[in-house]
């Protein structure tokens, strides 16, 4: 099934023609560009940029403020900030919100999935828990991933959904791919570095 021309047109108009849409889209692109401009400058090859201004006061477009705060917290438990940047520096929750908002009327099922996911976390008491309680709550919800014999709580689906999208948002961000993984590709090089390890020549 393909999306009709009309749907696409409606989507494009909705996304770019509303004042908020224009503002948001241009800021997002700007932020991405300013990050990429500094991506491989100088000798530093680690760390994330500080948050672009607009994200500091970013109003969630898809989630309620309460759900968004819970989502942010959840993503930061999944990918914490430690020696390397985490979901916080990568603004994973913001990206998820942006993506779902951008879907407009195209993917009601996906949007509903996310609403349900946040509802199941709410039902589990995640929203009202302390940071420490939240950590142990996520560990409990996630346990069947490591041991499929364990019983899955209603929030297990939410965990998988949020994890999948957080991982995507994180490792496609500069904080994730450069800051956490030190990816060296997509650069200008004089030569290609050959393997210099004698142990790799032997099986």
């Amino acid at each position, binding site marked *: 099934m393909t*999306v009709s021309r009309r749907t696409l047109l409606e989507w494009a108009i909705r996304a770019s023609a509303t004042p908020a849409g224009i503002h948001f889209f241009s800021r997002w692109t700007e932020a991405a560009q300013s990050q990429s401009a500094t991506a491989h400058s100088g000798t530093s090859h680690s760390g994330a940029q500080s948050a672009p201004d607009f994200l500091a006061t970013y109003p969630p477009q898809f989630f309620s403020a309460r759900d968004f705060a819970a989502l942010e917290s959840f993503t930061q438990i999944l990918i914490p900030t430690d020696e390397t940047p985490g979901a916080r520096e990568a603004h994973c929750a913001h990206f998820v919100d942006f993506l779902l908002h951008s879907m407009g009327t195209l993917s009601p099922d996906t949007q509903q999935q996310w609403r349900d996911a946040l509802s199941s976390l709410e039902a589990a008491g995640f929203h009202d828990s302390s940071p420490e309680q939240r950590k142990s709550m996520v560990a409990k919800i996630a346990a069947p991933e490591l041991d499929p014999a364990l019983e899955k709580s209603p929030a297990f689906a939410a965990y998988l959904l949020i994890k*999948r999208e957080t991982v995507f948002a994180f490792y496609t961000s500069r904080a994730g791919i450069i800051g956490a993984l030190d990816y060296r590709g997509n650069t200008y090089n004089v030569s290609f570095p050959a393997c210099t390890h004698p142990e790799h020549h032997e099986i």
Partner: protein
Amino acid sequence: MAVKYDAIVVGSGACGGWAAMELAQAGMKVLMLEAGSPVDQSADFHHTFLYDLKFRGRGEPGFLRRYSGSERNYRIMLDNEENPYTTSPGTVYRWSRSRCLGGRSLHWARASDRMADYEFKAASRDGYGMDWALSYADLKPYYDRVERFIGVSGAAEGFPQFPDGIFLPVMPLNCAETIFTAACKSLNWPTTHRRLAQLTTPLNGRPPCHYCGNCVNGCDVGAMFSTVSTTLRPALKTGNLEVRTDSVAAQVRMNNENRAQGVTYIERFTRRSVDVDARIVILAASTLENTRLLLLSQKEGLANSSGTLGHYMLDQIGGGGVIGFLPKLKGGPSRLDDGKSAGITIPNLVNIDARTARKDFIRGYVINATGGQSEYPLYAASLPGFGSEWKKEVRSRFVAQARVWIAGGEMLARKENFVELDPEVKDHWGIPVLKIHFSHCDNDRALLAHFQQTAEELFRKAGGEAMAMTGPSAPVGFPGAPGSPDAAPSKTTPAARKLTPSGVIHEVGTARMSVSPRDGVLNAFCQTHDIPNLYVFGGNAFPSTGDKHPTLTMMALAARGCDHMLESVKSRTV
């Protein structure tokens, strides 16, 4: 028409660009028609990280359902809504196309391997299908000519099933490729670096590769061969070539002396129909588009006295492979691993001679392998757990990624795989579209299964840990993601699952070459048997796929066809 050209070339891909260059350099007045937009490599192509893109490579929601390709390269691909095609019930075939100046030469895999006589004469050896109407010796001078001009990096090895060419210095192996090479040596299998139309030294004003790894998004400096980087500039320099982009060819027009008179095209935006005339018409619009044009040009198809036009459609076999990790590399330092966008090649190991003959299938396949860092850790989402320990594990595996894939599985030519004009569906310009009838046979499945066994053997020998390709622990990608696995629905390990063959965008055939006009559409010069001033360049002529990537052979055929054309013009036989 006021102007009559010496030649019209329909299409600007690898073959169209080559033909335009050779003919213009020979003094012919050439018109090139391209259905898509102009492309300027330095203005249009840039290095981008996924975070530079608004939707991180996925494209705006819904957008990439319309375009093939990714958020990065959709512009050098094709608008599927303007250019639909249909398939018969039961056919699963993804026809990946490109409409822009340069066509698929802008994002191709650059693999440039020569076919060998054991492929050209396969039918004589195993009794299936039809031999090519030429031998390696006939094509060798043209392989030489094309390689010299486009620049192919690689190493001469002397493998009989993998003929050497004229090579620029070979690229170095990364760590994963070194380990796979060692594994092949211990299995006594031949290996070499992939032979790639990617410069390692400057050539004809083109700079060498800078190892960014962005090849499939268009090379910003033209270190990889494309029409735009390589053949178009010298062609335009002659002053003999006129290029009309946004010009959608609709049919070849005939005169009443059984000669092609010219081409009718439709202006892409105004939809005005324009007739252009020439002494010679060359179709180089990609294999299936060429056949579509022949079908559109006359009832029952132009140049179809043999009745074979549209039939014996082929692709090479995809659908298997192994992905996972090389434990030796886990936790190692970051290195530039994917900057070549390359890998190693293991030439075909089966059905070469009596010793390697198989009872369960005929023909062969080529294997490729590589590994190391990539621009997105495809495995991360399916790696169980979360938190700092999980992050460390993702990092540790990032440099240890490894994959083995099938590079040229030979599919058997069958008449019942064919294309025809859809009786109802038309494209954006009102031109009937192709309907594709395509399926695989038992031999194709047996060959793929054998590839899978061999690939897994290689992976084990290299000490690799394979990941499930599908199921709960399979890697999770995103549509259009570089390296997204093209997985079949199954929950078991690769060895146990029944593989479903797919295509690999190597579609060939549908106007095969033959010695006798009764058996095919084209002769060994890619000239139609029926109409002397009509040539078809691309994969159409292939009576069989062989196990090599097809583009270099298509270009060598085009170069040979151009020679023939120029001689015929001189001797006035065309």
